[in-house]
């Protein structure tokens, strides 16, 4: 960060030395700490429930479609990269590139949410619900045949939909806030090399959401 940028992003009045991070960025870091605790509670509960479950968990890939979600994961990682690109572009004083990469990030996030909605619809059609397996559905037949263990499907549904649902909610919030930045700041050209705190702060959030997804993808889909 250039000297000029640092000045623009520091408090407008003299202050005792804190940490050398401007308020919005510090605020976002602190907010992310609380998000860690939130997802920690959900993921921790999942781990505890899964280890204490009465019987085996359904094998990976039987209920959930790994391939499409792997693609979705790839998409989200790409959007993290494009976010970095947008940040680098504006830091280098290239608003045009920044707009392009920001738009790409928004599109990547939106596609992710879209695919997740599609996945949910598909799962519900097959009979996978937050409360477990719907009677008379395709999955219910698989339970009857013993392809998937019925005893743990309730827990599977509860934890899967809660964790991925709240992650999806976070992605949606991220997409909306980026869209807001794009329309109110990026398009009118309000981001300058002097001041691009919005990009950096939302970027932090976006990387965090990405990181959470990688954890979720691993423990929910692959293990």
């Amino acid at each position, binding site marked *: 960060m250039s*000297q000029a940028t640092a000045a623009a992003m520091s*408090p*407008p009045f003299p202050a005792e030395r804190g940490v050398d991070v401007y308020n919005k960025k510090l605020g976002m870091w602190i907010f992310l700490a*609380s998000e860690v605790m939130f997802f920690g509670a959900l993921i921790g509960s999942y781990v505890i429930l899964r280890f204490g479950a009465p019987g085996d968990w359904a094998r990976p890939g039987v209920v959930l479609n790994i391939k499409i979600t792997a693609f979705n994961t790839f998409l989200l990682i790409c959007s993290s990269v494009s976010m970095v690109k947008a940040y680098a572009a504006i830091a280098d004083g290239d608003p045009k590139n920044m707009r392009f990469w920001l738009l790409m990030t928004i599109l990547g996030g939106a596609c992710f949410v879209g695919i997740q909605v599609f996945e949910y619809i598909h799962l519900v059609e097959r009979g996978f619900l937050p409360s477990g397996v719907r009677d008379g559905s395709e999955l219910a037949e698989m339970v009857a045949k013993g392809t998937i263990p019925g005893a743990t499907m309730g827990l599977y549904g*509860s934890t899967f939909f809660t964790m991925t649902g709240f992650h999806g909610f976070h992605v949606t919030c991220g997409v909306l806030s980026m869209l807001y930045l794009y329309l109110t700041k990026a398009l009118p050209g309000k981001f300058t090399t002097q001041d691009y705190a919005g990009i950096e702060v939302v970027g932090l959030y976006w990387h965090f959401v990405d990181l959470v997804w990688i954890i979720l993808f691993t423990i929910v889909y692959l293990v």
Partner: protein
Amino acid sequence: MSTAAATAHAGHAHHDDRSFVQKYLFSTDHKIIGIQFLFLSLFFLLIGAILSLQIRWQLAFPGQPMPGGKLLPESMAAGGVLLPEYYLQLVTMHGTFMVFFAIMLLLVGVYANFLIPLKIGAHDMAFPRINMASFWSAVVAGLVMLSSLFVTDGSPRAGWTMYVPLSARHDYSGASLGQELWSISIIFFGLSSVLGSLNYITTVINNRAPGMTWFRMPLSVWALFITAILGLLAVPVLAGAAIMLLFEQILGTHFFDPSAGGQVLLWQHLFWFFGHPEVYILILPAMGMVSELVANGSRKPIFGYHSMVFAICGIAFLGWIVWGHHMFVSGMNPTLGSSFMVTTLLIAVPSAIKVFNWMGTMWRGNLRFHTPMLWGIGFVAMFTIGGLSGIFMAATPVDMYIHDTYFIVAHIHYVLVGGSLFAIFGGIVFWYPKMFGRMMNETAGKVHFWLTLILYNCVFFPMHIIGMAGHMRRIYDPTIYDFLKPVQHWNVFISISAFLLFGTQIIFFLNFWLSMFWGKKAALNPWEDNGLEWSLPSPAPHGNWDTPPTVYRGPYEFSVPGASEDYIPQNKKLPTDREPALAPAHGD
């Protein structure tokens, strides 16, 4: 960059041209938000108190029609006689309102907002608009919780700790929508709390006035800062648990459903992982404020400032690893119980340091018994009882007997009423001039203090006795138990004292409202205190300072030998003081 509003107003802080709505309703000014929180939380304090009076009526006179009980609908009281399901609603809502919406908002909402920027010499919070959002989500949370009293089947009734499966299954509890409103309200409350906390932390870290180094910060700011960290990290866990509970209620998930492999104790672990830091959220700010009150009233520097700070940090740290002491008899692995017992007992150490240091502060002082000092001393005396009674339940074998009895009820009320609420009363009197520009009446304040102190002990001390006799919590009618018959007269005594205690609060109520209009006009520094807030006019103007104050010393320089007065404000420049170095961004 940090705050558009603060920047815009920094230049003309004393020429306030905002509309009424901007100024008082959707205000971004931390002081107005603090005062909004004050009105909101005092309202919920009143609601919580009214609920507790009904509990007390039932316990003292079970089965007899309550005066005014006929005003309640048939689903709550039949012919004025409270029904068991309504009694459980009272117990649940009393706890919920008092813990979340009265004490927590009074300490963290009111004082963190009002005091942090004033005491560290900042124009406002780091994020004034987020601060406003925090207040309004607290309002939404409170209204949702309140509305549960009026929905079909009534409010939640699984106790404020909402133990599953009772809270998750309507067929077990008899509640319906009310139970879900609790979860929804707590989710909003969590949002409010996180938004507030991140604001307080950022502000304390980055927006301190020049010279306000970490170890020149007043203990109240230290306490509020550490509390904010606790809130930031603990409340999201509760929100996560509340979301699971809500899904359990409306989507039929199985997190806590043993018949589908869910775990009942998981809720308790999540709740108390939040809940125990929460206990310290409810007491640390009170400890911080009492440090201010006692130092000011003793006209002496706080005894052992550094160990006070480390004690706050120590309590906060230990607070994370003791949650299991709420679960000694819950069926948790007893070996875990042993380790939780050890950490719990250790908390007695920093607590003891604090009590002894307050006494050390009074030792050889020059005591001024103004109302805030009385509340401060009252706090130390009462918190000691609450702290000591905690040792009984920390010892696992004894806890096996007194767990879930009135001994616990006595303990929590000694900490939260004799502790937190006493400090809050003291704080209201102390900072009232800075909030409203007028003084509260001292005579009325002292009468209120003494009556409250006496009646408070009449209410809560006998609870130890009935707790020792084995009196269970949340019991609708103790008289059906033979082993409780010998102590039933104590229930009558407690209840009558409780009604009188409630009556006594009318003095405070009148003093609070009348002083706002007819109180004595407050001078700049009526308590002759050192804090930065006392360098501002009363009430403090929007934007606080035109130019930020410079801090030259710690906050407790009272009775310095050779000084002209017995206090030296933090921003008073003496010839020997050097200018502090500024933040590097400006120094370059």
